[in-house]
């Protein structure tokens, strides 16, 4: 353990999970909390109810394609998702995820993870330990200084924290 690892269960999805599945357009006027309850419901009606804080979303290629709407990443974070693990991400989603405090991890062999597997994930080391299967997978590490922003809850929270530190200094 390095202190940066998190443990959670895997919720597994396929390729091309788009932003309309993550945050349906016709519900975008709802509050972020209410919108999150509809996250992925079109393909996994029980997801919002069953996902627990720290659990991971594991998916196929091109996760988060579609709209620039940040609610796609915000909804996952509000449900407590500890990170998204996929072989590739849509560009805007990837930037949004880190900016909003949701780790997004590039993992070539995410397909080896099965629904319900217990994972220990260290984004800084780039290491995913599948405790259920006794396997270790590599993912692209997120540098520690970037993870500091992610852990703070995203860019804006990070700026506010830094501003508060400056004020105290």
């Amino acid at each position, binding site marked *: 353990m390095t202190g940066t690892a998190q443990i959670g269960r895997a919720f597994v999805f396929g390729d091309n999970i788009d932003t*309309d599945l993550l945050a*349906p*357009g016709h519900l975008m006027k709802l509050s972020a909390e209410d919108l999150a309850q509809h996250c992925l419901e079109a393909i996994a009606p029980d997801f919002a109810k069953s996902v627990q804080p720290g659990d991971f979303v594991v998916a196929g290629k091109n996760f988060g*394609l*579609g709209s*620039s709407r940040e609610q796609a990443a915000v909804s996952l974070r509000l449900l407590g998702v500890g990170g998204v693990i996929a072989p590739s991400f849509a*560009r805007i989603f990837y*930037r949004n995820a880190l900016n909003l405090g949701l780790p997004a991890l590039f993992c070539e062999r995410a397909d080896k993870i099965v629904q319900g597997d217990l994972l220990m994930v260290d984004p800084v080391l780039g290491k995913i330990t599948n405790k259920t299967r006794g396997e270790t997978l590599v993912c692209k590490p997120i540098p520690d200084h970037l993870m500091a922003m992610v852990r703070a809850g995203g860019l*804006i929270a990070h700026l506010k924290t830094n501003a508060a530190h400056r004020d105290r200094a």
Partner: protein
Amino acid sequence: MAEATKPQKVFSGQTLAQKLLARASGRDDVAPGDIVIVNVDLAMAHDSSGPRRWKPHLDALGATLWDPSRVVIVSDHYVPAVDGESAAILKLTRAFAKEQNVGHFFDMEGICHAILPQKGLLRPGIFVAGGDSHTPHAGAFGCYAAGFGATDMLGIVVTGKTWTIVPETIRVELTGSFKHHVSAKDVMLLLCRELGMDNAFKAIEYGGPGVAGMSMEERMVLSNMAAELGGEVGLIAADRVTLDHIRAHGGETSEVDLAWQPDPDANYERIVTINLSDLEPQIAAPHSPANSFPISHAAGVPIDQAYIGACVGAKLEDLHMAAQILKGQRIAQGVRLLVAPASSQVTADAAADGTLSILLAAGATLLPSGCGACAGMGAGLLAAGETCISTTNRNFKGRMGHSEALVYLGSPYTVAASAIAGCLSDPRLHAADLAGAA
């Protein structure tokens, strides 16, 4: 608008994306994989992604806009207000534009991507950051135009800068010319299938005689749907057609802007060539633009709705295409044809040139200009089990209303032909003008 100076020095083997990012980052040259800090020339956002997301943070950080004259705000998602929430979002957007002295604010005039070129705000060479995924639309003018989320956009409007990773470029070479009732939309539906939608962190660059022969509005379709390919940008180098369009819309440009060209020996990750002369009308089946095939493989599927709308599919030329098919015809019993022009200027132009009369006489219902049903927000949403054919750019599950609705994508020709037939239909079989078309 923002000044785009001539490239200082010509390095061999540079793609257009590299040249534009070298300019934006103040470097002589850049290579794919370089992380660069770029100066933003124009920052655009809309009522959904912009002020309502930024304001609480700007207030908390005590920050203001870096340069209001370079900020464009367009209210297009929640227009016109249909309830208290959408009215409040629009009210906040108006108040923000006023408080912050936003240089370019367009309230209910049309979709942001249609507005930028219509108002002459684009110029070859500039870096455009947009708070919407279809921002690559502006790449048709040789701008480096990329979409960003609201937090990235907040950083951009406060600092005037952002970062990006210099992308590898996929070159799409178009040769030949369209047969009747085939259009740029068909190219993009084919490309979604051929290139897939997983091209994140890559640039798409279009060129060749097929592009040179296209109008600006058709080029915009290529650039717009670079977003569906997953690309950061969809670039088309400027030519005389580009400069004429900019001048006709009151924008600034000069011959210098023609210097923004890829090098003949540019290093591309991949080059794909499409002969437009061989292209048939394409259609994308639910629930992905990549799930596409020639219309002949899907003809006959009954439809409930035909939708002509969105930044990509409701420009004046799109309405002209639909009118060409619908002239003197009537839509099928039980089918609704909805037309939401991309801007109020498009509506006015279509009224002036007689296009609107043709559409209305055929049974179309005219809707306000805005993102509308394409974004799942406006009029024209679908019920469970309903089928729609649409000129829009995405048909993801649940995007246009109920998650059990079925949305097919096609060109304005194909959508109009299907509205007449009451089912997915090949526009080449319906063309009122085909007799004279050899």
